């Protein structure tokens, strides 16, 4: 655990240096990358550790974005609005998990997929509160320059990512993480060994929601304007899963590695193949998952095994 924590601290310290480079394009990209990192690490709680394929990321993201936006509309301080978004997401996930986590496998996946759609329709129809389909404008933060704003939101996202990482590290080296790994490998056997499976799964689901909700709120403040199809986009759910699978499910650094890899691919492919970028990206992902089913990080283990004398 110590080793992982040290690597994590060094990693995030390096990230903190990015704004010194100065270029707006890279800073924007790095902010998105950290946001993707938060989504991927969060999904790792429920999808990687517990093995439950949740598609609810988009629901938590949108819920957080709208909670933050509406709270700011009513004059709450931006920081308070972000915390409120996390709080609402975790409570929502707790209630939702209690109902949904009785389902296993595909059934759970499909049920979680529908949640974002339902929330989007609700937000669409609650026009008074959310502006409905017209979207919602957020107050501009009182900051001197556009550059200062960009740096501020970069550091906000960095802090959130570091927090998510710390939570994941703590969970993974604890009774909770151990119990989740038992559930992932054989839920009936875990139950028989005294693991309160429902409680553990709901806890994992709540952890997978809280940071995503906050990321949604930070995102909303960052871009100043949100609308339902943007923040309840099912692609957030899909991307989180793809990133974790690319990096290595259930591992500590897998989600982060996956986020970096995915964003690089997305950006490169988008620049080179403007017309068919989604198609090329999809093909690359299929190839990666096909040949590296346990993620990129499994490569290092494979090398380590080969080096060891037989």
């Amino acid at each position: 655990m110590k080793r992982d924590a040290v690597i994590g601290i060094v990693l995030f310290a390096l990230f903190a240096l990015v704004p010194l480079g100065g270029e707006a394009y890279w800073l924007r990209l790095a902010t998105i990358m950290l946001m993707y990192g938060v989504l991927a690490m969060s999904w790792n709680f429920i999808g990687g550790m517990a093995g439950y394929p949740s598609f609810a990321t988009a629901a938590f993201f949108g819920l957080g974005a709208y909670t933050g936006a509406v709270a700011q509309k009513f004059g709450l301080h931006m920081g308070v609005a972000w915390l409120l978004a996390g709080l609402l997401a975790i409570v929502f996930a707790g209630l939702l998990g209690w109902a949904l986590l009785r389902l296993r496998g595909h059934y759970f996946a499909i049920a979680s997929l529908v949640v974002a759609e339902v929330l989007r329709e609700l937000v669409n129809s609650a026009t008074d509160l959310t502006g409905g389909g017209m979207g919602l404008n957020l107050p501009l933060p009182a900051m001197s320059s556009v550059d200062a704003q960009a740096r501020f939101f970069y550091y906000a996202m960095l802090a959130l990512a570091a927090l998510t990482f710390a939570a994941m590290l703590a969970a993974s080296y604890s009774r909770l993480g151990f119990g989740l790994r038992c559930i992932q490998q054989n839920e009936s056997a875990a139950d028989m060994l005294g693991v309160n499976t429902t409680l553990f799964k709901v806890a994992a689901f709540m952890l997978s929601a809280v940071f995503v909700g906050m990321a949604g709120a930070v995102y909303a403040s960052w871009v100043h304007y949100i609308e339902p199809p943007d923040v309840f986009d099912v692609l957030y759910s899909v991307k989180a899963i793809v990133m974790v699978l690319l990096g290595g499910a259930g591992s500590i650094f897998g989600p982060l590695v996956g986020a970096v890899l995915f964003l690089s691919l997305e950006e490169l492919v988008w620049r080179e193949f403007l017309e068919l970028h989604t198609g090329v990206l999809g093909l690359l992902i299929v190839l990666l998952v096909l040949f590296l089913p346990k993620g990129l990080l499994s490569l290092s283990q494979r090398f380590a095994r080969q080096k060891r004398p037989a």
Partner: protein
Amino acid sequence: MSAPLLELGGVTRRFGGLKAVSNVTLAVPQGEVIGLIGPNGAGKTTLVNVITGVHPASEGTIRFAGEDITRLKPWQGARRGIARTFQIVQPFPEMTVLENVAAAAMFAGGRSYGREAEREAREHLDFVGLGGVADQRASALTLAMRKRLEFAKGLAMRPRLLLLDEVNAGLNATEVDQALALIRAISARGVTILIIEHLMKVVLSLCSRIVVLHHGELIAEGTPESIVKDPRVVQAYLGRRYAEAAGAARG
């Protein structure tokens, strides 16, 4: 005699219209080894599932150490001291042997995460003779070793009652003898055991009492000697005509 550790009162379990277990009343005294036998499909494993809460009883009550546990979930029973091994062994394949047993020590045995659970797990692994493979993956073990792993997991749960579901199925003669010695050693620690078994050699040499299930009903109960002579049992296993012929020959 003290109150029995496990008491089943009129326990029935239905699956749709089928009664897999029908009106079973049974008492398992503290410290004894009870054998549960019956032809294939008699409902033996279902009865274990009902006791542990995997498939809760449709009717009747189950009491464990004086407490009504009929409606408890498996993990709640596990924390009260009910451990079971599976007919088809169920380790956590990607974890090491040590982690498998540590999980049992932690979640059912009440040990804290980390060193304490691992130290206890090592003791149990040494006891069942798996100390040498503690750091291997559970999926790398042979069948006989996996069965031993089930024993170690069961022990790490600090059980008062151990339900053994065909722990000897698929083992060769030597391995069966080793398993027998292990079960005796566990029983000597004061653990009450309910064992489902097809091998009569095992049942006869271990059990103080045997109960026989057939079509979900309890058809006979008694000492090993009386059970093998019981015409209802012979009939259940070998058919009515054989039982009549055997009875005539004896009579």
